[in-house]
């Protein structure tokens, strides 16, 4: 049954890859990258169970935590045109 789940995850990876290759806008590609990240987490989790070493979920955990950063960085770059706000007004107000 892990094999069935693995098949589903692999199919979704292929579909997301196709969207990333075709994606007409940058946002489509970001979306595909995001989905691909989630599917990689699933891939690593299921592969751990499939091959009998499920203690390697830490890698999935890294992706679940860090994959977000790429998306945020790209959106910020699209929005502001640069990654740092050096003298951005009022950025301490909400802290």
């Amino acid at each position, binding site marked *: 049954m892990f094999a069935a789940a693995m098949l589903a995850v692999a199919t979704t990876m292929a579909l997301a890859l196709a969207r990333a290759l075709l994606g007409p806008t940058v946002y489509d590609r970001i979306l595909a990258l995001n989905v691909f990240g989630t599917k990689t987490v699933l891939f690593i989790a299921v592969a751990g169970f499939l091959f009998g070493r499920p*203690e*390697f979920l*830490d*890698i999935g*955990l*890294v992706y679940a*935590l*860090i994959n*977000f*950063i790429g998306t*945020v*960085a790209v959106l*910020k770059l699209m*929005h*502001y*045109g*640069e*990654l*740092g*706000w*050096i*003298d*951005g*007004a*009022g*950025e*301490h107000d*909400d*802290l």
Partner: protein
Amino acid sequence: MRALQQEHVVLRVIAKMLVPMILLFALYVQFHGDYGPGGGFQAGVIFASGIILYALVFGLSAARQVLPPPVVRRLAPLGVLLYAGVGVFSLLSDRAFLDYSAIDPEHPSHGQHLGILLVELGVGITVASVMLMLFYSFAGRGRR
């Protein structure tokens, strides 16, 4: 600028929850590297990523207040010195360079364990601070 920032309330709330988790996870990776996958290299990069997420969402100057660049610049050689210091320590106690048994001559295995922990800590400090240094250098060079 102000209006744009208020759009990202969801992002800010989630990032506020996520950043401490990432930093905590980096510490877990650093000190659990003996038993599972992980170690200083990975932990350093993950720690830096946590601070980078903070900088991306709350602004570069906020992140610079958390970890000022001068501190980061001093931490980077500190890690290398810690690593090399372990080696020099073992040299001083008449052993080969980086022979961790010198740390605890009574129990060589325990000494090895402690030495690996110290060395990985040095690696982690250097990698984290160098990665942050890279990010600060690149992100801080924006348009004025």
